């Protein structure tokens, strides 16, 4: 890069002229060209000294540079043939060149040419205020000190030309020669031109350096800016590192003050760090613990667990006391902590970390302190090669130097102060940091807000998802529950229906049971048969009223009693059963149903009666738990059977008797035994015929009795005239009465009767014929009738008998009275029964079948009437027939 050099003054431009060339001009031209070939100051300076030495042909040409502290240093040197010792890199104390001399160099542009031997110095002033330049050399005696100084240096002749850079004494261009040497004005002129060129080069070099530094700073700023701004998350640590490095620090830190209460400070470090021991009174462990307690949330990059120097109570106070290095009072460049007014604990912390210099940048944004950017420099060792050891005794260098032998001075622990460039850089960087931190803060806030928002959104989404899931689950559950409920409902409905049905069934069953129970009770109560229950031991558990009545006990006498003993259960012939033989016990033992007829039970009074019984086991789940015995008193049945047997015997007898006669007689006749006995044959035929008639009558009567009795014969009822009935009846028996010499007396009454006239006539005829049969000749048989209309009639006829069974009036009462043999009193009840003639033989002899009265009774009963007899043996009999006189319609 070609530095933008300032335009050279035309006076200084050496143009080679065509034709004759000035050898100085040529030299100058060559020298300037060579100098101009480089932009690098050291090279320019080296070239310069070399060219000048070659030009002047002196022993040594050097460039003496003034450091800001006033010390001098030889920074370029050309030595010819080692005629003088090298002073390159050697330092010279401030005092070597007094201040007034320096002033002359600067303001008068004084050039001096010393001739040590001649003890004179030639001085040429290039400027003299408003005076014109006079390049003349004025000689005067040289200061002895100066002369001795040069002598000590081995110099006999010297030329010193000041190098000024922007009104600032930059250095000296010095030529030394070991032997005397005259410097011509021309030579001085050339050297001056060269020196001017060097000035220009210095200015150029300074500009270049400034440009370079600026470029470097800009590069640094760019890098840091990039780190701070180019990525979403600014790389503060790396930016800090870059900053520290750019500022040639050994460490640095960025403390970001909390922007909000309860927010922890943020803290980044790089390199050496101070360890702040609070007031120096606490141990490190305790400190650490306290730190942890005070700062539960440490930001990333926090490497120090100790209290922050920026939070030190006196940090800002101290800074305020220090002189700020910028116009905005935001930068403090503490070159040497040892000279600062820093609190001792803070200072100790820094010094212990080998930190000697601090550059503190208070980062602000719109007057708000955001952070502190601090860069540390450690102390450094400064080594200097001095041209000769200073005289300890001559501190003020009053005496001229005697030796310029190189003396190496090493200064340890020196502060490394901050340059203006450093401060500018720090300021520039600080501004970027401030903006970045502010932005970061904003960014963090936004991020936090975003994060919060994101979190909210996430939470909301999560919540929504949860709600959705819950909703889905809920819906699922609701669905499931609904289905469950529906099922349960259905089940419940089904169960309710079932229960209702069951309840209904139960109610019906209970009602049935109750009904049944009631019916059973009724049945048991109403049963004509005796029923009692037994337990397995044979004790009576219950007995129905019929049983109680038949047995003659009270119920409580029966319950719990031993049935076998109590009833004295016996065989039909009266022999008591052994318990083991009792069919009832067989039922209890084996569960068999036992039927028995004609066994005897005994009553409480000791009497016995024949029974039919059935004993059945009571089973519960196929186990015999008792027995029930149902019995009936068969006394009446036995009697009826006996009567029936007797009746059959009688009928059989009555039928067989005439048949016997018929068979016997016919047998004889058929066998031809009577062929020779016609009278006997006739007699046999008569007997046979007579008995045949008898048999016919008998059969007719028997059939009649049975048919009337069982209603097989319907009564053909019509309204009959009672008188007619009486007269017709009398007429039928009239012949029989006459034959028996009985007089028949009939007293008919006029009344209407609703009756079967033929049957009534049959009845009256039967009664009349009976009366005739059993009357002695010459007596009278009477037939009379009375219509009893009401109770009064009964009262009015006290001689008339009242029917034996209640018969409400009106009724008609027939009476057949005879004066015959009468009926024994014991027969009065039975003569109306079949074949119950008082005297069968007599009856048969009278042509009776023994069924007549039976038929009469049946007929009367079919008319709703009654028939009875009153009689005294030997004093005649009175047969009565009472028939109701009711209307036909009423009778139905």
């Amino acid at each position, binding site marked *: 890069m070609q530095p933008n050099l300032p335009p050279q003054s035309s006076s200084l431009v050496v143009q080679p002229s065509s034709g004759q060339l000035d050898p100085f001009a040529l030299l100058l031209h060559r020298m300037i060209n060579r100098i101009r070939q480089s932009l690098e100051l050291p090279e320019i300076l080296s070239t310069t000294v070399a060219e000048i030495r070659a030009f002047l042909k002196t022993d040594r040409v050097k460039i003496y540079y003034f450091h800001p502290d006033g010390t001098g240093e030889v920074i370029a040197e050309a030595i010819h043939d080692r005629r003088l010792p090298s002073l390159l890199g050697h330092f010279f104390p401030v005092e070597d060149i007094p201040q007034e001399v320096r002033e002359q160099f600067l303001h008068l542009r004084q050039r001096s040419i010393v001739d040590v031997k001649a003890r004179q110095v030639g001085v040429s002033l290039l400027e003299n205020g408003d005076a014109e330049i006079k390049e003349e050399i004025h000689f005067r005696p040289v200061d002895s000190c100066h002369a001795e100084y040069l002598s000590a240096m081995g110099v006999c002749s010297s030329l010193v030309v000041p190098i000024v850079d922007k009104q600032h004494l930059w250095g000296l261009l010095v030529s030394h020669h070991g032997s005397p040497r005259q410097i011509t004005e021309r030579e001085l002129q050339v050297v001056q031109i060269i020196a001017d060129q060097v000035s220009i080069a210095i200015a150029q070099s300074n500009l270049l350096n400034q440009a370079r530094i600026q470029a470097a700073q800009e590069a640094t700023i760019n890098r840091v800016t990039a780190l701070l701004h180019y990525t979403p998350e600014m790389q503060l640590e790396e930016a800090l590192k870059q900053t520290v490095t750019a500022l040639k620090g050994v460490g640095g830190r960025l403390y970001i003050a909390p922007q909000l209460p309860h927010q922890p400070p943020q803290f980044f470090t790089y390199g050496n760090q101070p360890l702040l021991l609070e007031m120096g009174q606490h141990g490190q462990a305790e400190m650490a613990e306290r730190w942890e307690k005070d700062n539960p949330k440490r930001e990333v990059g926090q490497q120090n667990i100790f209290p922050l120097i920026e939070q030190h109570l006196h940090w800002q106070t101290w800074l305020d006391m220090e002189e700020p290095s910028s116009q905005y009072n935001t930068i403090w460049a503490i070159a040497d902590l040892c000279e600062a007014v820093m609190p001792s604990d803070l200072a100790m912390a820094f010094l212990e970390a080998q930190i000697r210099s601090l550059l503190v940048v208070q980062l602000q944004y719109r007057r708000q302190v955001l952070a502190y950017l601090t860069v540390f420099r450690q102390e450094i060792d400064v080594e200097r090669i001095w041209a000769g050891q200073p005289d300890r005794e001559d501190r003020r260098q009053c005496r001229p130097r005697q030796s310029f032998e190189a003396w190496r001075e090493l200064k340890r622990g020196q502060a490394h102060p901050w340059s203006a460039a450093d401060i500018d850089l720090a300021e520039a960087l600080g501004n970027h940091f401030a903006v970045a931190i502010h932005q970061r803060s904003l960014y963090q806030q936004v991020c936090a807000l975003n994060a919060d928002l994101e979190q909210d959104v996430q939470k909301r989404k999560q919540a929504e998802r949860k709600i959705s899931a819950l909703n889905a689950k809920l819906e699922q559950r609701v669905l499931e529950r609904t289905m469950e409920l529906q099922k349960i409902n259905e089940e419940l409905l089904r169960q309710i229906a079932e229960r209702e049905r069951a309840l209904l069934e139960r109610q019906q069953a209970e009602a049935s049971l109750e009904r049944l129970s009631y019916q059973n009770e009724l049945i048991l109560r109403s049963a004509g048969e005796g029923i009692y229950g037994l337990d397995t031991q044979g004790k009576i558990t219950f007995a129905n009223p019929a049983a109680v009545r038949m047995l003659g006990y009270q119920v409580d006498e029966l319950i719990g009693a031993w049935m076998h003993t109590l009833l004295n259960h016996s065989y039909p012939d009266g022999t008591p059963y052994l318990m083991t033989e009792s069919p009832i016990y067989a039922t209890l033992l084996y569960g068999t149903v036992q039927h028995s007829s004609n066994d005897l039970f005994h009553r409480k009074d000791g009497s016995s009666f024949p029974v039919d019984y059935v004993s059945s086991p009571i089973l519960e789940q196929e186990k015999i738990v008792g027995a029930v015995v149902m019995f009936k008193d068969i006394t009446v049945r036995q009697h009826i059977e006996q009567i029936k*047997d007797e009746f*059959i*015997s009688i009928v*059989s*007898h*009555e*039928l*067989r*008797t*005439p*048949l*016997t*006669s*018929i*068979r*016997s*007689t016919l*047998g*004889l006749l058929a*066998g031809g*035994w*009577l062929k020779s*006995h016609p009278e*006997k044959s006739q*007699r*046999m035929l008569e*007997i046979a015929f*007579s*008995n045949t008639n008898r048999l016919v009558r008998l059969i007719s009567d028997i059939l009649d009795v049975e048919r009337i009795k069982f209603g097989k014969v319907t009564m053909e009822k019509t309204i009959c005239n009672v008188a007619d009935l009486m007269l017709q009846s009398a007429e039928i028996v009239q012949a029989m009465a006459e034959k028996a010499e009985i007089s028949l007396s009939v007293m008919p009454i006029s009344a209407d009767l609703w009756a079967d006239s033929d049957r009534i006539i049959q009845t009256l005829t039967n009664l009349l014929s009976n009366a005739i049969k059993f009357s002695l000749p010459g007596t009278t048989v009477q037939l009379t009738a009375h219509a009893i209309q009401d109770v009064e009639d009964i009262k009015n006829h006290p001689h008339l008998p009242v029917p034996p069974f209640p018969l409400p009036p009106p009724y008609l009462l027939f009476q057949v009275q005879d004066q015959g043999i009468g009926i024994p009193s014991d027969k009065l009840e039975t003569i109306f029964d079949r074949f119950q003639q008082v*005297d*069968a*033989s*007599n009856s*048969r*002899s009278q042509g009776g079948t023994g069924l007549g009265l039976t038929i009469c009774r049946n007929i009367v009963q079919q008319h709703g009437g009654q028939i009875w007899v009153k009689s005294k043996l030997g004093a005649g009999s009175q047969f009565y027939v009472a028939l109701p006189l009711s209307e036909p319609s009423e009778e139905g």
Partner: protein
Amino acid sequence: MTRCILIIDDDPDIREATQLCLEITRGWEVITAGSSNEGLKKAISEQPDAILLDVMMPDMDGLTAFEHMQANPEISHIPVILLTAMAQPADRRRYTQLDFAAVITKPYDPLALADQIDSIFKE
């Protein structure tokens, strides 16, 4: 040898027909009685060879009359033939248990009756 048969029956027609039958077919002497009491008297007085005894009679039934006969050594030896119109099996069993020479059910065949009496005599 002429046998004497006593018929005790309350039915005159039976007495007459049976008497004629035994007289005609066998030539036996036949005496009759219309009741038990009469029959007992005649049995004792007449000492018949056999007695035909009806069961149902008004004064005394045939079985009672038979007990009387059995109880009376004068006539207890006379074989008694029971003539009965009681044809019930129970009656028959009852009669056969008693010491009748025979039990003949009415209506009987008159010739068979004679044969049966014959066989009793032959025993």
